[in-house]
């Protein structure tokens, strides 16, 4: 009912004007308008809330010193090269005035702040770009400060973390600006060759010459949500190609999908994630590692023998085992990662084209020892399986695996692979991007990897797609896993032109764990309970835990040369 027009309003004044001395008004700085959602927000809430809009959760750009406060232990920041003298290599007119004006307004010396911090007690060298200073474009001083910081980190054996944000090269410094890309990259190469860790954190916006140099060179590349990251800016691209760019183009999420970012990290958890990464890269005490592994290996050795005898079932035929290996409720790669390791931190992308979800990889702790874990991952539901492409990796997946293996090699971490694939993905795009090349490259590189590599076939070991993750020091199989040159169906249809004879093929192919052990293709068979699902994994995982500990105890003894020589011999005999 509309009462509004029926009520007689008693108030006489309709154009009230306040006559008070202090007219209501919002003092400057109290409220701000979110430049993303347009909502009015209280400035103090933003300040106390990691500079994130409380309404739309959009990220505001952060001043360099605020950023350092957010990640550094209180009072731990020690600034380096704070005062740098102005340079004007091209004698560009008006440049000095502009810089002086910015210095005054921002209280910054230049567009980057560098120094040393502690992050949850872990020392690191940091560089933080500040977009308020000429859009953090890279001139000589920016390049020089970053280079000096990286050089000093190399000298002092410290990891480097750089928060990037930049419009690109500094036009006023011309070709000298361009050279900073080479200079900073060269410094990072030396730092990397010295075995040190570099983490880049991409923030909004990271473009141009900074993207094409130190931003993209991190051993680990993190990004803030929805940050613009690209080489050419979106406006330039649109003008050049005369097309409208799709929504989300060049945002962090886009880069993650395309394999260039390891992980998108929310600001609230950034400090803890960085601290964990730093901790995982501390050089381990060899004697202590040995002791831990010995204990873990011993603990399981006693229980193990009985369970093995009890559980080995010889009565199943090969075809039955093939079917068990493909069962829907069988534990998948990610189940093993959860059960055997702690603090798994997943990293994404091949740095070329895509993040292939058929392969999951990252760093985790095994009894407190950092290891690189890579698994071919089937899904548990149809939706998950579609996302993971039924664990049939694309070339991008193998390239991601290789990237993580090379990273493990750099930091001396053992690699543990879980193999479970019907085969490498068979499709148009896979061929376009070089499926054969990707698999070959993995065989080639893995044979010479200077850290221990263990592969466990947990389900289906389908041909080259499996081998690309199984050029290892030892290959083990679950009792009902299979490993073969081709699926029994494929074998039957090629040899006998009848895929229905798959069960017959399975028998003659010698693809069971027992057969392969006898053939000397694999080293160990892990017994399974009768009905093996993710509900009753403890037995198998307890067993695996002891065996992996023993493997690592054994293989960490070898030098890099011994390791690769042994691995060479292992395959040379076959």
């Amino acid at each position: 009912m509309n009462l509004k027009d029926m009520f007689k309003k008693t108030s006489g004044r309709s154009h009230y004007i306040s006559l008070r001395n202090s007219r209501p008004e919002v003092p400057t700085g109290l409220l701000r308008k979110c430049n993303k959602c347009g909502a009015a927000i209280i400035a103090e809430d933003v300040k106390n809330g990691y500079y994130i809009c409380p309404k739309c959760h959009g990220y505001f750009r952060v001043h360099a010193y605020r950023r350092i406060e957010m990640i550094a232990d209180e009072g731990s920041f020690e600034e380096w090269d704070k005062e740098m003298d102005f340079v004007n290599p091209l004698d560009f007119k008006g440049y000095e005035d502009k810089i002086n004006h910015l210095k005054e307004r921002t209280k910054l010396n230049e567009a980057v702040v560098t120094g040393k911090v502690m992050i949850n007690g872990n020392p690191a060298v940091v560089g933080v770009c500040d977009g308020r200073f000429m859009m953090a474009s890279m001139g000589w001083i920016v390049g020089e400060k970053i280079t000096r910081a990286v050089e000093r980190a190399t000298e002092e054996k410290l990891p480097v973390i750089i928060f990037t944000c930049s419009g690109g090269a500094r036009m006023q410094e011309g070709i000298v600006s361009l050279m900073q890309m080479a200079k900073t990259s060269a410094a990072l190469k030396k730092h990397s060759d010295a075995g040190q860790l570099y983490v880049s954190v991409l923030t909004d916006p990271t473009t141009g010459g900074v993207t094409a140099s130190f931003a993209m060179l991190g051993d680990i590349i993190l990004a803030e949500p929805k940050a613009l990251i690209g080489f050419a800016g979106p406006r330039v691209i649109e003008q050049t190609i005369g097309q409208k760019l799709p929504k989300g183009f060049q945002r962090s999420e886009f880069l993650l999908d395309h394999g260039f970012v390891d992980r998108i990290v929310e600001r609230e958890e950034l400090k803890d994630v960085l601290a964990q990464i730093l901790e995982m890269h501390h050089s381990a005490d060899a004697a202590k590692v040995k002791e831990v592994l010995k204990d873990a290996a011993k603990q399981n050795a006693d229980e193990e023998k009985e369970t093995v005898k009890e559980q080995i079932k010889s009565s199943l035929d090969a075809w039955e085992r093939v079917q068990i290996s493909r069962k829907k409720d069988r534990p998948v790669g990610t189940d093993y990662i959860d059960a055997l390791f702690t603090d798994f931190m997943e990293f994404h992308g091949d740095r070329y084209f895509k993040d292939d979800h058929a392969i999951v990889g990252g760093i985790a702790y095994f009894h407190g020892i950092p290891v690189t874990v890579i698994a071919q991952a089937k899904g548990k539901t149809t939706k998950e399986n579609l996302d993971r492409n039924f664990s049939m990796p694309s070339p991008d997946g193998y390239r991601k695996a290789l990237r993580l293996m090379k990273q493990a090699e750099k930091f001396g971490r053992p690699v543990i692979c879980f193999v479970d694939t019907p085969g490498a993905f068979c499709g148009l795009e896979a061929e376009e991007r070089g499926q054969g090349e990707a698999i070959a490259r993995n065989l080639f590189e893995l044979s010479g990897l200077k850290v221990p590599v263990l592969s466990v076939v947990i389900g289906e070991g389908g041909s080259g797609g499996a081998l690309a993750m199984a050029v290892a020091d030892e290959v083990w199989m679950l009792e009902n896993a299979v490993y073969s040159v081709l699926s029994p169906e494929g074998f039957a249809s090629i040899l006998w032109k009848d895929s229905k004879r798959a069960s017959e093929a399975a028998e003659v192919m010698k693809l069971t764990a027992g057969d392969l052990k006898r053939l000397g293709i694999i080293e160990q068979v892990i017994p399974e309970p009768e009905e093996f699902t993710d509900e009753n994994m403890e037995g198998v995982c307890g067993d695996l835990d002891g065996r992996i500990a023993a493997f690592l105890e054994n293989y960490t003894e070898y030098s890099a040369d011994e390791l690769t020589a042994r691995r060479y011999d292992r395959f040379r005999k076959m």
Partner: protein
Amino acid sequence: MIGKVLIANRGEIAVRIIRACREMGIETVAVYSEADRDALHTQLADEAVCIGPAPSSESYLNMQNIISATLISGADAIHPGFGFLSENSRFAELCEQCSITFIGPKSQVIQSLGNKSEARNTMINAGVPVIPGSKDPIYDAEEGAKIAAEIGYPVIVKAALGGGGKGMRVAQTPEEFENSFNTAQKEAQMAFGDNTMYIEHFVQHPRHIEFQILADEHGNVIHLGERDCSIQRNHQKMIEESPSIALTPELREKMGEAAVKAAKAAHYTNAGTIEFLLEKNNNFYFMEMNTRIQVEHPVTEWVTGIDLVKEQIRIADGKPLSYKQEDVHITGHAIECRINAENPAKNFRPSPGTITDMYLPGGKGVRIDSAIYSGYTVPPYYDSMLAKLIVHAKNRNEAIRKMRSALGEVIIEGIDTNVDYQYEILNHPDFISGNIDIEFIENLG
């Protein structure tokens, strides 16, 4: 001079404030959520501004939008009503920063009184009685017994990390103490992994007695007598009356003085309420101070003849109180029943929906504060209170009879209400005789 007020609330209190403003010749601005387009307050005010979607977090609790609405409409002041932002010190502070008069106490005062331990200390220092308790943690029964004796029996032993009644035991006498303490401590250790205990005086079968305060910005503080709000369910008051049958004139004076002392100690301004627990032996203890207008303010208005909302606006405008303590006289007896859209048979489940038909009582000594009308749809997003029925008569018995008669006339069709439940309480012998405490509803079962 306040010439235009924005009412940052909804429902009957918004209507109540609009009415007061109009009588004072002050223009009104209502704010409303998308669910309240047809609400009475939206239609009754001189202007109305939509401040967001239905959920209160996005509308009636959205500080920025309310501040913006105030500036756009050119209002000088905000009346926060009760609930929502009324006791939010952050909001009061924002108003202060924006030179908007917040009709209520200063933000600093809201904050200090909102902090339980700070408020307790303020009261102890001002000599206002609080529930006696141990200051330091206690770990063994022997030490506890000494402190219990100082505090006075009965006592309650509480786990420092306690909650949900676990690790809590009452000891009526010193003989029981050791056993109670040890049982509670054991329970605490089991439930919370911690055996730190506190001891407090156990307040038995108390009444909820609150005193209405008015304080101006010139240091004048008066009290307007008490309200007995013992009839409550899950800490939600259902019936309030003034004066309380439990207070003698001497006790009223004593408690009133304590209330004034409490308000002065907190540097309080505007209308506020001091809540006490009153024991059968007439000991009373400060619980907390409500820094806003209360739902049950009409009972005080009726027995004192003072319009509390108008006084609030006058005080906020910097004017001295219109009354001195000696001008305040309690006349007759007033009772208020809250009429809620809820179903008592289904565990008081809220019952939103459209009111198809409606008849509300009237006559001498009957007042209805409500925001409902025939055809109004009660939205599901907010508090379920539909109306307040208040009666005033010469004495308590007459007031009870008047309330029964008025409740009998209330007709609200289309949704469930608690009218029949209220009617039953009004007929309960213990209520009639005034033999009530805060467990009354619980004991009804």
